[in-house]
């Protein structure tokens, strides 16, 4: 099984503004009411973009080569599986820590929302790229949901993808550092289901 490393362009990580606003709990009506907040959010969007260092490790192999406990029940019969971990890097974590330390709560909320949506944008982009290559697939799945334990993250990152700890560290609990990191699984089959 060959692990590949990808340093995506930042343009893959641009979140939709409405998703970013929604995740931050800001109602759309506010967009027309508070121009200063819009400007602040836009400035933060750009600042956050400067701070991300997106990275993906991934591999695709025959399904039977993976432990059964890694494959979600919902995937059913699949021929092959892609496993990947994506992260926005440490710098954006650091920025969040700085906001937190300085009691910049609004900035922290906005940045957290932005980062989550940015990582989702990255995953969506990579997902699309994989589907073009592999054809029919299951929906994208992350450990911690359904039948796959979140602690499988340790196995995925350390054992399977062999990501250096300086880039991604997984705690016993399955929580990953940097905070804006996700592991994802997509199953592939020959026919549409």
């Amino acid at each position, binding site marked *: 099984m060959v692990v590949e490393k990808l340093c995506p362009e930042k343009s893959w990580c641009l979140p939709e503004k409405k998703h970013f606003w929604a995740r931050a709990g800001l109602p759309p009506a506010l967009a027309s009411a508070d*121009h200063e907040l819009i400007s602040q959010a836009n400035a933060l969007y750009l600042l956050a973009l400067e701070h991300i260092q997106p990275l993906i490790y991934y591999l695709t192999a025959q399904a039977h080569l993976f432990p059964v406990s890694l494959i979600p029940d919902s995937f059913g019969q699949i021929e092959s599986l892609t496993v990947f971990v994506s992260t926005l890097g440490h710098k954006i974590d650091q920025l969040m820590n700085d906001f937190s330390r300085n009691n910049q709560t609004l900035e922290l909320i906005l940045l957290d929302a932005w980062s989550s949506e940015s990582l989702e944008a990255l995953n969506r982009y990579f997902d699309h790229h994989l589907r073009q290559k592999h054809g029919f697939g299951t929906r994208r799945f992350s450990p911690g949901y359904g039948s796959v334990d979140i602690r499988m993250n340790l196995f995925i990152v350390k054992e399977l993808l062999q990501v250096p700890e300086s880039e991604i560290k997984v705690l016993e609990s399955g929580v990953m550092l940097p905070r804006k990191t996700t592991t994802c699984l997509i199953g592939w089959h020959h026919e549409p289901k």
Partner: protein
Amino acid sequence: MNRNEFSKLLEERVLSLDGAYGTEFLKRGYQENLPEILNLKAPYVVRKLQEEYAEAGADLILTNTFSANRIKLRHYQLEPELEKINRAAVSLARAAASSYQLVFGDIGPTGLFLEPLGELSFERAYEIFQEQARILIEAGVDGLILETMSDLKELKAAILAIRDLSPDLPLIAQMTFDEKGISVTGTSVNIFAALLNDLDVDVLGVNCFLTPDQMLPVLNELGAYSQKPLSVEPNAGKPNFSGGQLNYPTTPLEFALYARDFVELGANIVGGCCGTGPEHIRAMTKMIGRIKPKKRKPVSEQHITSRTVLKTTEPFLVVGERINASARKKLQPQLQQGDFSEILRLAHEQQTEGAQAIDLNPGIEKLLNAELIKRLVQAVDRHSSWPISFDFQEDQLLEVALQEYPGRPIINSSTAREENLTRRLEFLCRYGGLLVVLAMENDLPQTVEERIAAVDKALSVIKHSGISLERIYFDPLVLPHSTGNDYHLTLETIRKLKARGLKTIIGLSNLSFGLPDREGLNAAFLGLAVEAGLRAAILNTSELTTKKVLDGVLELKRVKREKNEIISEDPLLNLLLHGQKKELLANIQEQLKKREPLWLSQQWLRPAMEKIGQLYAERKIFLPHLILAAETAQAAFDYLNQLIPDNQSPKKARVLLATVEGDVHDIGKKIVATVLKSSGFEIIDLGRNVPADQVVAACQDRKPDLVGLSAMMTTTVDQVLEVKKALENAGLNLPVVAGGASMNRELADQFGVYYARDAVDALNLCQKLISQELKNESHRKN
């Protein structure tokens, strides 16, 4: 593409417009003073840029013709090329655009102010715009866009000129505002929207001058008032100067983020102005994608406006009745002689008494002519009068007044007779505004039923015209009580019309005509009429009882009438702000009995002008007020100066003004000159398009204390630095003050000059610099 198709497209999705031309050509090394000449000299450069815009996903590609009108081309000796430049521009844009992209002909302002702020007549402006539009239309554009207009009257001239040529071509009309949403000429975004909602355009919008973040509240305000689709084109930030060129700091991504916000605010078309390029448009189209425009809920109430004042008609509209040359016999001869002083005084008086609009009845119209009416409307505009109700009988004179008026007026009135009403509705369609329709055809109806029948007849004509009934007031007719008329007929007509959802207005004072104690009678009837459902009245605003009863009845209905804000209670300030030269000079002559002319000039008049400057800086008055006050003060200063002995005369500081080379705009410079002159500066005006060496030569010859430079265009703003360097090289260490749309404080710092944001800022700065100079001089002498 016709307007229906364009309208459907606007409903389907948000459209993107391309980016800048002038600044982009500069970036690419083409330093033409007039970028439009590239259409002939280097067409491949224009086409390449347009191909890049097309490739970046712009739905609308503009022709490179912003300044290609006869007036601007003349300044560059390119007048003979007018047709070629415009035709070539359409061919180039068409060649660059794909079949699904639209080519819009771009038309910018003439660069001159229209009367009364400047010297260009409405008719001439109309011809200039029509000439350029005709060429663009014949060359095959899909639509036209009017951009960067700062004068509502000029915009109106352009719209009428285009619509008279082509009723079925999509038309976008945009104005430029500052961050407070006010144009250079004092028109606010909501006034712009109020008039443009009526005029025959498809989209209204804002462009230039503002950075994307500054554009947000301005677009939001426009969206609150506009009933039509919106367009927006901000600049890519405020430019700075580095590496020998102008740089705009807003990155494509930042621009795109704001573009997405504009969509959220309801924009239907988003594009870029100065400093934006294909990368900005690419990022923007990617960020916006194919998205349906947001639905907006603009305010539904009706407004009337002058150029600078907007008044709501809700909950009750009061129109001042006292400018009535039929009733005031001395007004008629004054009017015939072109003396508008009494009219202006009455307008001002009624404003302070609480009128929201001023009725203007010129009396016997056969004794007047179009030129007089034109001058009258200009005088009213120049004195920043409040919205006007044009009480004219003759269609020809009414049309002259409506054409000349830069606002949304009331047309008072039409009978229900089809021929009369149809003509007045045509005026309403063409020039905008509200209309009063009398509940009668030819003869005075004697019963309620006859009045309602007349209204019914009018309604069928109005329905046919497509004009909303929200824009119509019906007059149920008030007849003199003294001749035995039954006032119940009027009240009953009001009730019946209200029940049908129609708005009513009355001429209140007709009731008490010929009777003593008119005020009591008027007040009592007005109270009854409001209770019956009346929505507006033309009345005598000096009648305190009438106003109190009105406010009382409204209070009982738990609504309040909008109160007029009084700008200043200082009598001197009011004389200046209302251009009352005669009264000011009479006042001075009276004061000269006790005071020295020097004291009056320096301790009385000058501080008053400083207060005027402060009011302008606080946006309590606008450019027309400022110019009028400055010109009025100038006459008083001139009078006093001739009385001051030579040895007592304060030394006049001398300021040399010029618009930099390559730039033909001098509106701003002229305003600065007027304001400086009114504050005692001597002005040497070198004009427009002045090369640096000419400025140096004039400084060596005329020995000014200060140099003032105007730079309106982003393509020529670096000339400010050239002048500064040339002065230094010639050993002239003069303070240089620069201003204009393209300048900003950061640029001024980089150029080593002072920055003046507007005329008042320039005045304050010049005064400060001169007192510094005087101090230095006295140090040197000591």
